[in-house]
């Protein structure tokens, strides 16, 4: 049990074991692990220190367990990789040896040290020693914690009804869980429903999708919510409350989809499903196989609904089933679910932005998606590929690859993954329809990497499709709306000219334009490309950093149908595992309150993003925590003016102890960086994984949220002579704890004013926002911090110390933290903290 009586006061004599992992050569290549272990032996409280090749291996863990028993260790520090990777592994190991898992601490000497200082063994070794020392000092202040278990609701929500969403919903429904499948459009089906054939098998897209759509529509375990959008989500893993806005359809479930209404309707508009190439009525069904097979009225187009008065009732007259209901109202549904799968898909690149190829100017320049509708039997031309200008069969067709992909200029640097094979398939489709058509493909690389892809590519060549290596410079319209294409054949090194009757731009896939809504609601991170970021690129590819939320399909990155379906099944399995367990342990990171210190000011309640502190102005009593609502960001702990809040596992003492450790030697040559667990710490990890080198002066202290960083932490570091301090977190709007980083920002602004007033240069304290995908940006900021560090003179440091000694009082918790290494303080200076409630 946590030591509630006197949190932070010295307890039993610490018996700390330190294990320095070589990680093969990943750490040992740049860090002298033996000397780090030797150094650890000299640290207070350390009973045993070893270095070992692979601590995460079975023998490594065994070694740890044996030592815990043999040396009666009560704290364990492993210096190896990021706690984001192996903390669970080692926590389990120490638990198996009978130690509370919260008495385990990790020093990140791989991602934050050896990998980012590959060529400076001496500095990396010194830094590793510092990091180990910080962990040892911190470990002393750790206390055993009991994790609370929260129940997991046995229902799931899938957001997005494309092929990925449908597959995920079906898998979960078949497993036995109830699923809410939310789709923004009037029908499920997504992009796949728009496509004519699929590669590499050339089978009909809707023929293989429609049965799945129908199954999803009638599955007893699936509630289909079409024409509906997720408005808001509150709660946490296992217990989400989702608000869904279900827009009115104006047509009831009695609709038999006979289509009589549509024939009668006088209003016409471009049909979105056919990418505007055909028209629809105000009352319409997006496509024949739509699920639900139910018509819908476009309220902006309908004469009656747009005018707000009955001016036209042709559809009502035509409908025998009396299924039309102009009084249909929007509904807000509140749905409780345990897990969420985000399968919101993608958009296609809009080549209007790219003027090179005359899209929008020349009628016979079309996109690959428009082509799909033109070659589709249910499309506007009944499947006869004709060109838009004169509806004639094109005799020469040219494809242009990488339109909106692999281009720094267009802002999409990534490869869109599907366009090469899509073009190969499209070329074959044209040959199938019109065998006389000559087809040319302008490309820079053909990427036929998947199963059966190369064979299809080869087949297209056998069929006479010609591939020209080189992207055209420009297209001119010549007579009869024909098109003249200029390019360099880069294999010949000569300019080539081709006259074509139809040009198809192979457009790339881009993140959905409405992605931000879901991203903000769920506080998901994004990759640099703008797709949703997975928890781990290899080992947790469908998880997100948010517990209970999973990814499927193109929302995570461009991919083909097969990969989307595979990923959807994986996401369903991951969500299913959680729900099958029925409960999940939540990390014990919530705060406790020391009532004797609390002045009942209510600031904690005010800054809490979750309203987890119950406090009323009238009562003037210490607030009470709603454990289930609290997510453990620690913002209250940082704000509390009387230091009456003790954050479990991240108490003030532990953080002061870390600061103490890193400022013991040469603090003036160091940068202290506070990093939040979810974004900036992960960004720093990514810098390591990507081997982005930055100067070794920085020492990182991890907090769950930047909101945890107390102003006093920064001042304490300055009073100890640190050169510069960086406080970092998620970008504003992306905070894992909704709005906690807004408090960080406000607090930093207050701190800068305070520093200026005291005469301390505020440039020495910086604030930075880094997403988990911004390793390079993090490294760049560290370089900048080190530049700032170079401008700080020893005199300035001394002056800062003097100023703070006069104008700022060292918090009690800091004194308690240092008592560990400076026992003399224990007696004279440290007041024992009053009991916690």
């Amino acid at each position, binding site marked *: 049990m946590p030591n509630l009586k006197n949190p932070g006061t010295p307890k039993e004599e610490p018996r700390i074991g330190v294990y320095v992992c070589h990680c093969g050569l990943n750490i040992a290549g740049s860090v002298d692990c033996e000397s780090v272990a030797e150094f650890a032996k000299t640290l207070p409280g350390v009973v045993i220190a070893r270095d070992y090749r692979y601590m995460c291996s079975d023998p490594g863990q065994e070694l740890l367990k044996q030592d815990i028993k043999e040396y009666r260790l009560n704290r364990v520090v492993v210096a190896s990789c990021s706690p984001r990777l192996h903390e669970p592994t080692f926590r389990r190991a120490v638990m198996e040896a009978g130690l509370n898992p919260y008495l385990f601490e990790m020093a990140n000497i791989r991602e934050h040290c050896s990998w980012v200082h590959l060529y400076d063994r001496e500095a990396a070794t010194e830094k590793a020693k510092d990091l180990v020392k910080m962990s040892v000092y911190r470990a002393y202040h750790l206390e055993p914690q009991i994790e609370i278990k929260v129940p997991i609701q046995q229902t799931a929500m899938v957001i997005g009804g494309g092929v990925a969403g449908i597959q995920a919903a079906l898998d979960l429904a078949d497993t036995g869980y109830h699923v809410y499948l939310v789709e923004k459009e009037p029908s499920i089906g997504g992009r796949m429903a728009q496509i004519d054939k699929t590669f590499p098998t050339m089978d009909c897209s809707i023929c293989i999708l429609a049965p799945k759509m129908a199954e999803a529509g009638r599955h007893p375990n699936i509630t289909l919510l079409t024409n509906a959008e997720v408005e808001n989500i509150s709660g946490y893993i296992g217990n989400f409350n989702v608000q869904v806005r279900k827009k009115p359809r104006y047509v009831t479930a009695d609709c038999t989809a006979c289509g009589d209404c549509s024939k009668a309707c006088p209003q016409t508009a471009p049909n979105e499903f056919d990418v505007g190439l055909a028209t629809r009525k105000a009352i319409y069904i997006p496509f024949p196989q739509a699920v639900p097979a139910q018509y819908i009225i476009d309220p902006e187009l309908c004469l009656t609904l747009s005018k707000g008065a009955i001016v036209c009732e042709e559809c009502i007259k035509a409908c025998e089933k009396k299924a039309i209901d102009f009084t249909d109202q929007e509904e807000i549904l509140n749905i409780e679910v345990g897990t969420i799968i985000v399968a919101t898909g993608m958009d296609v690149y809009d080549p209007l932005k790219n003027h090179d190829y005359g899209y929008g100017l020349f009628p016979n320049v079309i996109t690959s998606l428009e082509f799909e509708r033109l070659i589709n039997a249910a499309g506007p031309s009944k499947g006869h590929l004709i060109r838009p200008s004169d509806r004639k069969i094109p005799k020469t067709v040219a494809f242009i690859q990488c339109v909106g992909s692999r281009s720094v*200029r267009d802002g999409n640097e990534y490869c869109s993954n599907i366009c090469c094979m899509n073009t190969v398939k499209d070329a074959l489709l044209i040959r199938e329809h019109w065998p006389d058509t000559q087809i040319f493909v302008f490309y820079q690389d053909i990427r036929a990497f998947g199963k059966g892809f190369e064979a299809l590519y080869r087949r297209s060549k056998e069929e006479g499709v010609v591939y020209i290596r080189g*992207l*055209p410079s420009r297209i001119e319209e010549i007579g009869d709306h024909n098109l003249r294409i200029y390019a360099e*054949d880069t294999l010949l090194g000569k*300019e080539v000219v081709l006259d074509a009757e139809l040009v198809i731009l192979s457009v790339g896939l881009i993140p959905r334009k409405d992605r931000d809504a879901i991203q903000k609601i769920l506080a998901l991170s994004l990759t640099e490309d703008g797709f949703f970021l997975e928890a781990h690129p290899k080992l947790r590819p469908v998880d997100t950093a948010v517990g209970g939320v999973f990814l499927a399909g193109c929302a995570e990155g461009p991919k083909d149908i097969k990969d989307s379906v595979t990923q959807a099944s994986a996401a369903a399995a991951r969500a299913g595992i959680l729900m099958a367990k029925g409960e999940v342990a939540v990390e014990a990171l919530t705060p406790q309150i020391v009532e004797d210190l609390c002045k009942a000011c209510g600031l904690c309640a005010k800054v809490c993003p979750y309203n987890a502190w119950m406090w009323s102005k009238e009562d003037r009593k210490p607030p009470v925590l709603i454990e289930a609502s609290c997510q453990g960001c620690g913002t209250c702990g940082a704000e509390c003016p009387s230091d009456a809040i003790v954050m479990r596992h991240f108490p003030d003492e532990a953080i002061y102890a870390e600061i103490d450790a890193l400022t013991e030697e040469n603090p003036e040559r160091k940068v202290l960086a506070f990093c939040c667990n979810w974004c900036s710490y992960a960004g720093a990890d990514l810098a390591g994984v990507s081997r982005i080198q930055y100067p070794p002066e920085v020492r990182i202290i991890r907090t769950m949220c930047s909101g945890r960083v107390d102003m006093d932490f920064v001042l304490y570091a300055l009073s100890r002579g640190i050169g510069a301090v960086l406080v970092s977190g998620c970008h504003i709007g992306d905070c894992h704890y909704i709005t906690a980083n807004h408090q960080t920002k406000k607090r930093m602004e207050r701190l800068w004013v305070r520093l200026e007033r005291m005469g301390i240069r505020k440039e020495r304290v910086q604030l930075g926002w880094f997403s988990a995908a911004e390793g390079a940006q993090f490294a760049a900021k560290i370089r900048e911090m080190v530049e700032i560090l170079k401008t700080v003179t020893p005199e300035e440091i001394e002056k800062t110390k003097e100023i703070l000694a006069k104008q700022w009082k060292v918090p009690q918790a800091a004194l308690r933290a240092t008592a560990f290494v400076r026992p003399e303080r224990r007696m004279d200076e440290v007041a024992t903290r009053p009991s916690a409630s």
Partner: protein
Amino acid sequence: MLKINPEFRKTLSQALGEEVLFLCYQCGKCSAHCPVFHRVPDRFNPRKILEMAYLGVEQLLEDPALWLCTTCYECVENCPQTVNFVDIIVTLRNLAMDRGLAPKSVLDEYQAVTNKGFVYPLTGRIRKVKEELGLSITGDGDSPSFQQVLEVRHG
């Protein structure tokens, strides 16, 4: 045969920045846009110059192609990968000059500029106008300020 010289590659990487070198996908848009390439495709191809720079082919500095670019920026405007070919060609020309590898015509011009301050000899009309305006007609090739400009160019 073209010889790949790792040392020369390092020199270029330092002079241009590695990013400039690896960005290119050899898509051919620059050459397809290039007016010089359209006239003399066998003698000048920006894509190929970039490939040789990327590989570190030192013979590139002796290639008269370096001096055919008009620095019109068509390629820079249209490069999907935002490669600044004009910066590259200028750097390569400077390297060629430094090593005395530029064609004789270029070296002669350089001599003319450094000696006289004029690229072309003065015509009678220009000389007259200059005299009317009271400007020097001997050129500023040996003036200290002109030499200073040249030094700055050499970094």
